[in-house]
């Protein structure tokens, strides 16, 4: 490995193997060991569509600073075997500085890999593993890669102990011994330096678990959901933790049911949530309108995947923006937010609960497969306190109006059990007293009220992340934010200093005044997002009269954005 790779600020590794080879487990241990050794990192799982026996890859990037996206190229590609490698490794990039580690007993390195001209190293993983009772090739690979990353044996041992401790001492020792063997074979390959100080205060968290944590912090105590890739982990993480917190999760028969269960629970006064992905969101759309009309607080987590229809379930895309923003029939004001990184899933989801409870409206959170299923090493994510309280009815008198016309559009809500507050929440248009009404004045005043409470709410500084004050504005949203941030950091100083990054966390309602203020003094803007039709770009043009030349750069999934792709686009645009 050359000096160039050794001096780089991050180390990118792919760990490949057929299903059952344990590459994901080894990848997670490597990430955890690196964290214990004082590094930051990110790991993305790439898996084939097969349930078992398919190929899988762990894409890992380690660094001295927080890592929030993958790099363009790989420093090390280690394959326990090469079965179906082409299918999963189609979007990886190697070069002559890259090292490919292969087991000589396995098949030849595929031509698509050797075509990059990387250095090839042999590591007899199966043979070494066989030297140890209970040893496995993936643990040999773990030790080898940890050594390449400069991660101490102690950190590896601790990571193994933590992950496998439940399997007993023998299993732990076998893995530790196998990792040692791998480590011993990599002595002359060390290409990265980990601080190796004692550092066990950091977190390892995925976007989907971070979303669950944000929901718990926000006060969600009821969830309903139907399994769907790539959102299922949100539900699976929440289920036992909701129980511990005095709440519960109900598995529904379909997404129509899960959304309505959440509406029912929230009507009962319990902050409620559902989590899904594109096809499920489509099924839920009618009842999101019900939550708008009946004014029921509700959080809908949508972990986006490539669409339309079933699309590419295990791959990422930011293409549900239109469905989330425009999907509901009728005039249906609601809120759409998007987390800007894996760790921001905590904050944005917690904020979503706060917004839903405060406005008595549905809030859609647009996460995606990239950040949802990525694991990162991060500093502990601090808790932020919102008041997150519903405006409940008090002093209910004879003339109580559930849908009273109020200045801020939010009407005090009675909960079942409150004497005198009885009303029927209705999908029909209604009067302030919640009586069904087809009268023009009732329709207009309720439409106005429901629009006002969303439009006039004080979203504060949370509506967007704004970095820099240059005259060239890069506007992006959601998971693309982290990649754009790194891309900007790589630009030459003279361009970098001219860039201003704006990433709205609040997508709906549009914030034309705030956006206009945010671009003050700028001359041009480039909108970057990951879909095929520039969905957010067109929304931005429709709702914001920006005094700028606005251009767009967008492409669909399934591959995640890499920094160079965005850096190139920004550079070319900046030179126009």
């Amino acid at each position, binding site marked *: 490995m050359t000096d160039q790779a050794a001096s780089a600020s991050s180390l990118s590794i792919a760990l490949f193997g057929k299903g059952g080879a344990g590459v994901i487990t080894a990848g997670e241990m490597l990430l955890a060991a690196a964290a214990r050794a004082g590094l930051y990192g990110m790991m993305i799982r790439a898996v084939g569509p097969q349930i078992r026996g398919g190929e899988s890859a762990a894409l890992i990037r380690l660094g001295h600073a927080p890592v929030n996206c993958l790099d363009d190229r790989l420093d090390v590609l280690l394959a326990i075997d090469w079965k179906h490698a082409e299918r999963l490794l189609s979007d990886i990039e190697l070069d002559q500085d890259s090292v490919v580690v292969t087991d000589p007993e396995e098949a030849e390195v595929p031509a698509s890999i050797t075509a990059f001209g990387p250095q090839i190293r042999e590591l007899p993983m199966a043979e070494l593993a066989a030297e140890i009772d209970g040893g496995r090739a993936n643990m040999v690979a773990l030790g080898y890669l940890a050594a390449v990353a400069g991660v101490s044996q102690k950190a590896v041992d601790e990571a193994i102990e933590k992950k496998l401790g439940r399997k007993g001492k023998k299993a732990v020792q076998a893995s530790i011994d196998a990792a040692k063997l791998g480590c011993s074979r990599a002595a002359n390959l060390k290409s990265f330096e980990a601080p190796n100080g004692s550092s066990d205060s950091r977190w390892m968290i995925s976007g989907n678990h971070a979303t669950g944590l944000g929901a718990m912090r926000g006060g969600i105590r009821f969830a309903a959901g139907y399994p769907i890739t790539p959102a299922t982990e949100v539900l699976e993480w929440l289920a036992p933790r909701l129980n511990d917190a005095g709440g519960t999760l109900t598995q529904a028969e379909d997404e129509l*049911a899960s959304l*309505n269960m959440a509406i029912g629970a*929230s009507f009962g006064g*319990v902050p409620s949530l559902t989590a899904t992905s594109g096809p499920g969101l489509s099924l839920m759309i009618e009842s999101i309108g019900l939550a708008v009309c009946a004014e029921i607080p509700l959080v809908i987590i949508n972990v986006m995947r490539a669409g339309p229809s079933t699309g590419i379930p295990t791959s990422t895309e930011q293409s549900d923006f239109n469905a989330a923003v425009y999907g509901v029939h009728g005039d249906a004001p609601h809120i759409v937010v998007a987390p800007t990184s894996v760790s921001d899933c905590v904050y944005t989801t917690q904020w979503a609960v706060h917004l839903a409870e405060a406005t008595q409206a549905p809030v859609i959170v647009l996460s995606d497969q990239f950040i949802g299923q990525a694991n990162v090493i991060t500093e502990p994510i601090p808790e932020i306190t919102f008041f997150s309280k519903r405006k409940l009815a008090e002093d209910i008198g004879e003339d109580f109006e559930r849908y009273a016309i109020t200045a801020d559009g939010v009407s005090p809500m009675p909960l079942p*059990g409150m004497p*005198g507050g009885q*009303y029927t929440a209705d*999908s029909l248009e209604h009067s302030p007293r919640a009586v069904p009404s087809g009268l023009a004045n009732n329709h207009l005043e309720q439409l106005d009220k429901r629009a006002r409470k969303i439009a006039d709410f004080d979203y504060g500084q949370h509506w967007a992340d704004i970095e820099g004050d240059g005259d060239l504005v890069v506007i992006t949203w959601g998971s693309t934010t982290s990649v754009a941030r790194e891309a900007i950091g790589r630009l030459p100083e003279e361009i970098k200093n001219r860039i201003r990054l704006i990433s709205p966390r609040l997508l709906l309602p549009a914030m034309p005044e705030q956006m206009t203020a945010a671009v003050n003094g700028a001359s041009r803007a480039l909108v970057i997002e990951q879909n095929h039709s520039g969905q957010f770009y067109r929304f931005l043009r429709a709702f914001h009269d920006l005094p700028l030349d606005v251009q767009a750069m967008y492409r669909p999934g399934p591959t995640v954005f890499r920094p160079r792709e965005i850096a190139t686009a920004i550079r070319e645009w900046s030179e126009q």
Partner: protein
Amino acid sequence: MSVQAPCKLKASDYKSGTKPVWCPGCGDFHVFLSMTKAVAELALPPENIAVVSGIGCSSRIPAYLNCYGFHGVHGRALPLATGLKVARPDLTVICAGGDGDGFSIGGNHLLHACRRNVDITYVVMDNEIYGMTKGQPSPTTAPDFDSKIAPGGPGISPFHPLVIALASGANFVARAFSGDPNGTTKILVDAIRHPGFSFVQILSPCVTFRPDQREWKQKVHPAPVETTSDAARAARRVMTDDGFNIGVLYKGSRDKYAQSVGNSVRHERDLDQEFLV
């Protein structure tokens, strides 16, 4: 509305005063009456009752009651009621609607509500027709019923709700007739009291689009057999009866759905610990 509910209310105290949209002579008036009598007999404070419905003539019932209510979207009453009861086990939750709402667009939810066995009572006012859209065949309509949308009849077998409820695991299955408000009241009281998912089909004539159903008054008769706790026996009976047996046909003792919102055993701040590397 009184701020403090008295312990004992009359049936009329459970009426909101909103005038129903139903046609004069509609069977749903009697179901409404029976429902108020049933909750009055059970002495349930109106604020502790929630009536959840979907869309259709009969689904208008929550607004006519002085209880908490939810008139949701077409076909989704059962999941909404399920979420409410799981979140608020202290409430008495009654789900109500028609045959189109419950057996067609919401059919899948019926299967899973029976199976889940959450402690709610589901009242279906069955008139074998879509009334609100003016006379299309529903899942319980006979195959030869002539209509504009299906001239000469839909030509497909009607759905058998009680058998399906039994097969899906409902814990209480009964058939009532709206024209017998006292009998219906009794069945509803029994259904609400019975733990788990109680399913009550109420034959409720549509005088406008099914004037032939006026004959139901002559056709109905008390079920000639005792209530059974054997689901297979109950299923065989309802499969082979004339569709007009009235009474509680099955009472099971399956454990009701156990999960519900309750007490915290762990502070949410503890969650942070599990993310430490």
